[in-house]
């Protein structure tokens, strides 16, 4: 249930991002909002349910951006696994660890997407994607900072109260 709710929040925020890009005048880079959710799935959920959440997040981006099916679904699940591998080496219990890790994971996600694009379509111009990589990671850090309280509050809804010693 937690994963479903977080996935729906991801869908809503990706849709919000779509609508806000033009009025905010952001044209050379985008915040990878879904990567923040994928990272949260990797850190706070069990492996299978987290992977399903990452799959859903990637699917939403595919649909809302008009991409051919599969590109961001694959990169999201792959990013989920990479984040899962990196997680033990970083203290991510607070936002201080979460935000920088979101940037690192976003860079890996972008590299995975570029790799897959060049594999499927060697003629694609990759230069603009490489040059947008760093600003995108920066914006994703900002998004992670803003989304963290939302994710924590959703997680809080599903926390069972711990019993005291005397109960």
């Amino acid at each position: 249930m937690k994963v479903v709710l977080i996935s729906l929040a991801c869908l809503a925020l990706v849709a919000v991002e779509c609508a806000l890009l033009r009025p905010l005048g952001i044209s050379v880079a985008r915040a990878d909002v879904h990567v923040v959710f994928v990272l949260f799935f990797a850190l706070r959920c069990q492996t299978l349910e987290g992977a399903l959440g990452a799959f859903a997040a990637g699917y939403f981006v595919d649909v809302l951006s008009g991409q051919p099916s599969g590109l961001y679904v694959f990169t999201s699940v792959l990013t989920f696994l990479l984040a899962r591998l990196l997680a033990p080496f970083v203290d991510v219990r607070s936002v201080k660890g979460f935000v920088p890790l979101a940037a690192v994971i976003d860079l890996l996600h972008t590299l995975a997407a570029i790799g897959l694009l060049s594999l499927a379509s060697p003629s694609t111009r990759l230069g603009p994607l490489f040059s947008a990589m760093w600003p995108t990671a920066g914006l994703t850090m900002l998004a992670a900072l803003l989304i963290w309280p939302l994710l924590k509050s959703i997680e809080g809804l599903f926390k069972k109260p711990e019993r005291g010693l005397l109960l």
Partner: protein
Amino acid sequence: MLGFIRRYRDLLAIGALLAVPLITYLAHAKRGRDLNGLDRAVLWATAPIERAITSVVGGAIDRQQSWFALRGVREENLELRRENLRLKGEVARLAESQEENARLRRLLGFAEAAPAPMLVAPVVGESPVLNLLTLKVGKGTRDGVAKGMAVLASEGIVGRVLNAGPTSADVLLLSDSNFAVPVRVQRSRARAKVLGQGALNRPALVQAQRTEDIEEGDILVTSGTDGVFPKGLVVGRVAGVERPNHGMFLSAEVAPAVDLAYPDSRLEEVFVLTGLPGRQDFPEASLPAR
């Protein structure tokens, strides 16, 4: 066998979650996306969010701009009155020319081409990823929008419909590197093709022979040979022509007639040509190869 599956259930499931999208993507990357029921449901669910935000943010920006605009409104009013008078004169002159044109056409026996039906669609969003430059418009299949239809603004062409959901549609922009449109130079009628080059670069003029009469500032119009855009729509102006000493083709940039790059772009509504059938099957060369 069952024991093996039960033991490695999670690993197998994650392997499937990786393999299925990868295979789907590699198989369909060059054919584009055909929206299924679930895709349509997602688009249907998110369309109100996007529309509401666009309306709220757009309204706030309008109010702010109106407040600033009030400061110079008196001078602007006078200027507009003068311009109005001038335009009235021009409209009268154009009406006269139109009458004359219609008379000459009748004389020559040409049938007046009926204008294609168009639909006004509000721009409600933009692609959240950079590798596919699309706009989201607030009209979909329920309004008669279909994949492949041409999308225009009053200044010229904007792109064409990439996917259409029930209440919204994605428009592949002229600036995207997967966009191509055959054109003619309005002045010399030389033929070429305009190819998008991504968000950071201007579209390129390609397949124009080195010996063709093409100069900087020439207006490019659609040739109408692709079956998507009608003949004669403005695409942009030629900029920076380079004629190499060797090879068959010259190279040039194109300044699009419609400013598509934010923050300069003021595109709020577009026209979708619903009268023309559009292309349901994109040719491979002009497809988003992603």
